[in-house]
Structures are given as C-alpha cells and as structure tokens.
C-alpha cells in the first residue's frame, strides 16, 4: 500500500492567536516494503506527519493518498480499515494500555475489527510471540504489573495483532535501557523483513544509520532532505545547524578529514569505519616501506 503525499500542509488552531503551521507543503512517496527513518528536532513536524498516514489528522491543504484512498475523504468503514492497515505506535505507548489483562489489551484492536473470537485467540498469541513475550506467562497478567520494556512490547503487540501492512513507530525506544532498545529495534527489523513498510521516527542517529534505507529530514515543518542515510549524513554541518547529529563514526571521519587525513567521510557504520581506517593505515604503512626501500637502494 503505497503512500503518496502531495503538498501537505497542516495548521494547528487556525483562526486563533495560537495558529501554528506544523507542516508546510510536504511532498513525498513511500513504496511498499521501504524502511524509512524520519528525523528532525522537536517541533519539526514528525509526529504531525505520521498522524496523517492513518487519518488521525486531516490535511489543512494538499493530499495524502494511502493505497489509492485519499485520507481526507476517508470515513466510517473505510477509515476503520485504513487504521487497521496502517498501525501507529505512539511515543510512550505504555501510557495507553488500559485493559485488565495483557490478553484483553492486545485483543482490543482485533475485536474492534469484528474478527471472530476464535481467530482473536490466534492473533493475540501470534502477536505476543512476535514481540518476544511468552503468551502463557503474560496473557492473564495485568499489563501494569510488567516492566516498562515489557509494557511497551504489549503495546506493540496490540498493533501487530491487527496485522498492519504499514508500521509507524514514533520514537519507540525513548526511555528504554540499552537492552530494551536493542530488543525493540531487532523486532522492528524482523517485521520489516517480513515485507511490511516501516516508518521509524528517531533521534538516535546510529539506529537510523543501521536500519533505514532512506532518511527524511524535517525542519520547521518543511521537508529538508530525503535520501539514503549515507547521503543525508554527509550533510554534517547542515544537520548540526538544525539541531540534529550524525552517527559518531561519521563525526569521527569528518574530524579526521578536518586535520587533512585522507579518509572518506561518507561512512555511517562501525564496520565501514573500521575498513576505511584499516585501509588508509595499510596504504600509509605500505607507502612508508616503499620510501624506505627507495632511500636504502638510492
């Protein structure tokens, strides 16, 4: 279900003194099966953008077309269908858990879709397994008795149980410890590997570099950059000027280049940095021994 966004603008509180243009003329297309990261400072419009994709917000002007359907016209059954196909995990989603048991919380979405109860059992079990929770252990527990990382996984299972085609995650790892963060990111990767489209809003540039094939940069409601992470993170200075960072290895390579070391700067992962540094080191050592030979034979 391709997503086509054309000249999308969104204005909060129009006609009041608090009027704010949160998105200005954003156009982009997302194909099936893409893994797209959305980065930008607080207030850049990231959350506003993703909330258009399942019809939670409607454009002030411009259009959003998901799988051929204009979301501004979607209502009733069609809107319900859209929300089921485009799953959106909010920031701190554990605050939205509300049922008495984990099972009921995860089953809430599918039950709303009027799926027969027999199938719901299967969906909930599969969703819990998918997020790395043992259904037998957690299904009858109160979601509020779980740890923060587990609660977040329950929230994610609630979305997975609706079997969405597009999964949007708004800072899914905020506040988690490093282990919890890795677990959630691995999960997101595995969901994408099963062919889903994934949109990840993140402030963690290392994660973005490692996972996404495409990075969208928003700045004050406008689309500033859109390209593969290697290209986007090359714009080191531009990103810094709008309050964003680059992966530490990218910043290292720029640091080496600024003192005239002959290294590439389009490096975004540890492995690439290792290979580039090792390569330059090897060539210098080699050149050094050639010079030495030249001197000794001359």
């Amino acid at each position, binding site marked *: 279900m391709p997503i086509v966004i054309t000249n999308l603008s969104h204005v909060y509180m129009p006609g009041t003194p608090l009027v704010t243009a949160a998105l200005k003329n954003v156009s982009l297309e997302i194909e099936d099966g893409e893994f797209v990261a959305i980065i930008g400072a*607080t207030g850049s419009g990231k959350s506003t953008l993703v909330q258009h994709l399942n019809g939670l917000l409607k454009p002030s002007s411009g259009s959003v077309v998901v799988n051929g359907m204009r979301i501004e016209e979607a209502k009733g059954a069609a809107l319900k269908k859209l929300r089921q196909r485009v799953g959106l995990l909010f920031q701190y989603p554990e605050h939205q858990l509300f049922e008495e048991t984990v099972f009921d919380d995860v089953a809430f979405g599918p039950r709303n879709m009027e799926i027969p109860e027999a199938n719901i059992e299967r969906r909930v079990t599969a969703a819990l397994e998918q997020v790395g929770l043992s259904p037998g252990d957690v299904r009858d527990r109160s979601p509020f008795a779980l740890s923060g990382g587990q609660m977040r996984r329950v929230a994610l299972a609630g979305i997975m149980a609706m079997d969405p085609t597009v999964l949007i995650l708004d800072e899914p790892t905020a506040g988690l410890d*490093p282990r919890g963060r890795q677990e959630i990111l691995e999960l997101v990767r595995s969901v994408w590997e099963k062919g889903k489209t994934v949109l990840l809003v993140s*402030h963690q540039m*290392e994660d973005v570099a490692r996972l996404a094939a495409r990075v969208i940069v928003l700045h004050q409601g406008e689309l500033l950059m859109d390209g593969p992470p290697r290209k986007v993170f090359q714009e080191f200075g531009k990103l810094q000027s709008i*309050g964003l960072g680059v992966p*530490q290895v990218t910043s290292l390579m720029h640091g080496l280049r600024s*003192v005239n070391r002959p290294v590439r700067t389009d490096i975004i992962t*540890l492995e690439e940095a290792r290979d580039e*540094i090792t390569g330059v080191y090897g060539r210098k050592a080699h050149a050094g021994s050639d010079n030495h030979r030249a001197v000794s034979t001359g």
Partner: protein
Amino acid sequence: MIRLEGVSFSYRSGSKETKALNEVSLEIPRGEFVAVVGGNGSGKSTLAKHLNALLLPSEGVVTVDGNDTREPDNLWRIRQLVGMVFQNPDNQIVASVIEEDVAFGPENLGLPPAEIRARVDAALRAVGLSELNLRPPHLLSGGQKQRVAIAGILAMQPEILVLDEPTTMLDPRGRDEVVKTVLELRSNLGLTVIYITHLMEEAALADRILIMDAGRLVADGPPRAILTKPDLLRQMGLDVSEMTRLAGMLRQRGLPVPADIISVPEMVDCLCPLL
C-alpha cells in the same frame, strides 16, 4: 558529602516484596560529578530518591552533609541542599511565566523580594536563559524547559544536583544544551552532580560512574575503567560506547590503538599519527 551505609529499600506490591536497593554503601565527596547507569529496574531512581529523603531506607543510613535523612527535623535542610530534576520537563514547570516558575522555590522559603529577584536572575543567567525570563514555558523547546527546571532548583541554592535521566525526552540539541549546562554549573558553582542516564556518551563526561544492577552497586570507578569493560557492560544490559567498540575492532585488525578510548576527539587524536 553524601554517605550511604548499607542502604536497602524494599517495596511491596500485593504479597510480593521487591528489594529495589540491596545493601548499597558509597560516599560522594563535594564537587564530584557522578554518573549512575544501569538497566530499567536496576534501582537507579530509587537510589536518587534516597538522596533528598523522597524515600527513606528500609535498612541502613543515608546522610547528606551529616544530616540523617530519617530524621524529620532534617527534611527542610536536606531538600534545600539537594535539588532534583526529573525526566519530563512538562511535569516540573508550575507557573505560566518562566521567571515566576524559577521564583517558586525561593518564594516558598519566605525570602525578601529583593533576594528572590537576585536569585532568579542569577539562576536564569547560570542556565543561559536570561533573555527568555518573561516567556510562557510552553513556547520553549524541550532543552530550554529542562534548563528552566534546573534554574528553579538553582534558585534554592543547593549544593547537590540530582538529575534523573534529564535528557531522555529531548532531541539531540536539547540533550547537548542540558549536558553543557550541567558541566558549566559543576565547574562554575562547584556543585556536586549525580546524573542518571542510559547514554554512555553522557556518562563518559563524569568523574566517576556507578553501575547498578538488581538493586546492588556492582561497579564504581572512573569512566575510563568502567566504559572499557565491554563484557561487564553487556552483562548488565548496557551499551559499549561507539568509540570503544571501534577501538576494539581496529585492534583486532592489528592497529596500535589503545583499548580505552571513549570519545570521538580522543579517537581523532590517536588516529592522526597513524593515517
């Protein structure tokens, strides 16, 4: 000086008793910058809340400049000595104008207006927000809000600043702003800083790192000693910083790089002569 001696803390949910702190002993001398790291549920926040008597030990003793936190008469003194900043800036701001928010604490102390004015101005200057003193807080960025929260604490003239994951909800610029502010306060005002974080690059800036696991203090040392033990960190569910990992990978390929590199500038310095 903060001193914990054999501090344990248990809480009950239903019939189950959980030990959130388990026989923790440590001393933090005046002016030290201590980072506390550990997984979710390791006891970091419980530890922090013991430092200004928000929680009292089930066993053991916590003293702040010699004041025992269990002694009710010490409460005012301790709360004034130890200021706390929490994760979510929106939950910590009470007034509709920034300088009024910063004045909230000193007003509660019943200080004369001129003294309040002087403290508010000094606190906003210290966090670099003097020019925004009349703004409403909701127009600030996350990093600015968190600095307002810090200014509100500074106006109480504390000696110890405890920050519980103050950058978790901020974007990269907000994180930088808060970290820089904390480092400045520490060097300009000589404050003792206790800084809880999940981010190893923030912990690397401290004088000393404590690792908590299952309520116990499992490691305590300078960043270079702690951050360069990948096995320990992984075992505790913590990250190994990117530059330490890269140093390990380069060493495996035979480059003469020290294993204990923890920051980008250090890595640049050490690679320069090799490339």
